């Protein structure tokens, strides 16, 4: 690994660890949106907040090497952007996949 790669790798690790509380908070918001959707009523403000979070995650997770996380976040974003009774039920599995991908240890 080159000096530049080592430096960038160290920064990514540091940033990832520093942002873990924010990441867990964002996943918590996604979980609340999933629960609301499952109950049959996803308030617009929560849908919008979850959509924003999914967009941010799709753009940043891959930067930290979590490419599968980016893919899942993109799927969640697409559903929240254009939600239908048919695709909303998929949110629960996707949110669980996302959490499992980012935190395989639980």
């Amino acid at each position, binding site marked *: 690994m080159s000096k530049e790669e080592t430096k960038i790798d160290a920064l990514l690790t540091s940033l990832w660890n520093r942002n873990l509380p924010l990441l867990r908070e964002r996943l918590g918001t996604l979980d609340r949106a999933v629960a609301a959707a499952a109950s049959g009523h996803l308030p617009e403000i929560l849908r919008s907040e979850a959509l924003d979070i999914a967009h941010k995650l799709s*753009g940043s997770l*891959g930067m930290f090497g979590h490419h599968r996380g980016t893919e899942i976040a*993109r799927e969640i974003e697409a559903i929240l952007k254009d939600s239908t009774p048919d695709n909303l039920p998929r949110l629960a599995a996707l949110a669980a996949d996302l959490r499992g991908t980012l935190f395989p240890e639980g």
Partner: protein
Amino acid sequence: MRRILIIDDEDDIREVAALSLEATAGWQIFTASSGLEGISMASTEQPDAILMDVMMPGVDGPATFRRMQEDSTVAHIPVLLLTAKVQGVDQRRFASLGVTGILFKPFDPLTLAQQISEMLGWK
């Protein structure tokens, strides 16, 4: 030495992009967390290029770009939009604005400088 302004509301994106460009290309980096702050900094610092996020609260990337085009102190600076939107319709909409290029998130920190150089025709 190239001088780049990064405009993004996400702290981690700004930090990773800045360190990536400093470490891999030796460029001098300025950062701003909003479109309006970015316009002001671009006018003051006169960077060689601007790397700007599309989705930002308040004045978003496309709106910031339009304002820049109306400002003679910054209109000449090439702008690359940085977006997580991968759909073709979004890409065509951004390209129609007249920006110099579009880069996609998530970017690879090790090749970001190379991508920017290629888009701007820098050797």
